[in-house]
């Protein structure tokens, strides 16, 4: 696994894209019907904060719900299935459903300034660090 990710980093644009089987959400039940999948997520930390990048194809802005409660960030993306009306599947390779995932955040996140951007089915959440948690250089006199 480590080998693979190292390689994808170096040759990100020349490598063939592989199919990643969707993972179904387990252990939690939702009140609305339908299947939920766990969105593929990247998380990285810089000096300024934490960034979460989640792939949720088919989710429009109004189907997205991001909430933060007791230090737990919950992201839910719902699909609008009305465009599938009157369509009969004749050949299928993937299943469709909503997306949901939650993360417990470290205390040092500035919870009032979380930014969210949705583009091409990818949600980017920027979670800035609370000023107290930013790395500080201490001048030695």
């Amino acid at each position: 696994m480590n080998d693979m990710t190292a390689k994808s980093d170096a040759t990100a644009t020349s490598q063939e894209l592989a199919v990643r089987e969707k993972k179904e959400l387990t252990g939690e039940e939702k009140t609305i019907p339908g299947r939920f999948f766990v969105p593929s997520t990247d998380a990285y930390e810089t000096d300024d904060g934490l960034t979460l990048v989640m792939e949720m194809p088919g989710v429009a802005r109004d189907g997205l719900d991001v909430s933060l409660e007791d230090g737990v960030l919950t992201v839910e993306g719902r699909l609008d299935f009305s465009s599938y009306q009157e369509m009969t599947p004749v050949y299928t390779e993937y299943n469709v459903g909503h997306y949901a995932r939650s993360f417990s955040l470290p205390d040092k996140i500035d919870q009032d300034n979380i930014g969210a951007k949705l583009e091409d089915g990818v949600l980017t959440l920027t979670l800035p660090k609370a000023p107290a948690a930013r790395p500080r250089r201490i001048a030695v006199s």
Partner: protein
Amino acid sequence: MARLPSPFDTLQSLQQALDSFRTSSWLDAGLSGGGAYPPINVFRRGEDFALIAEIPGVKKSDIEVQVKGRTVRVSGGKSVDYPTGSAVHRRERLGGRFDRALSLPFEIDPERVQAECRDGVLALLLTRAEHDKPRTIKVS
């Protein structure tokens, strides 16, 4: 009272239909074996067909769609990168290129192909070419 079709009913029936296809064995030895990216679902709507693929993170300008005869080819790519100096906690997204061709059991009318990509979902609407449509012959 007029009753509008519920989107959730649609969802349930769609998922059941998808399930029955995915669990049937004929897909196992199928065209792609689940290996080719992007996975494609094919739907029929009346006379027309719709090819739908999930390609999150691929920009519209990076997608190329070609149609010739019975074959549709979709290619493109995306890169997944992180700012330099960042500590990566979790890496689940994949970057790279894709190039996939799918053959359909009918000739496509190249003039009437509609392609749209919204929220990371590519939809191609294909119409059967007029000259390929079955003709009814009147028996005299």
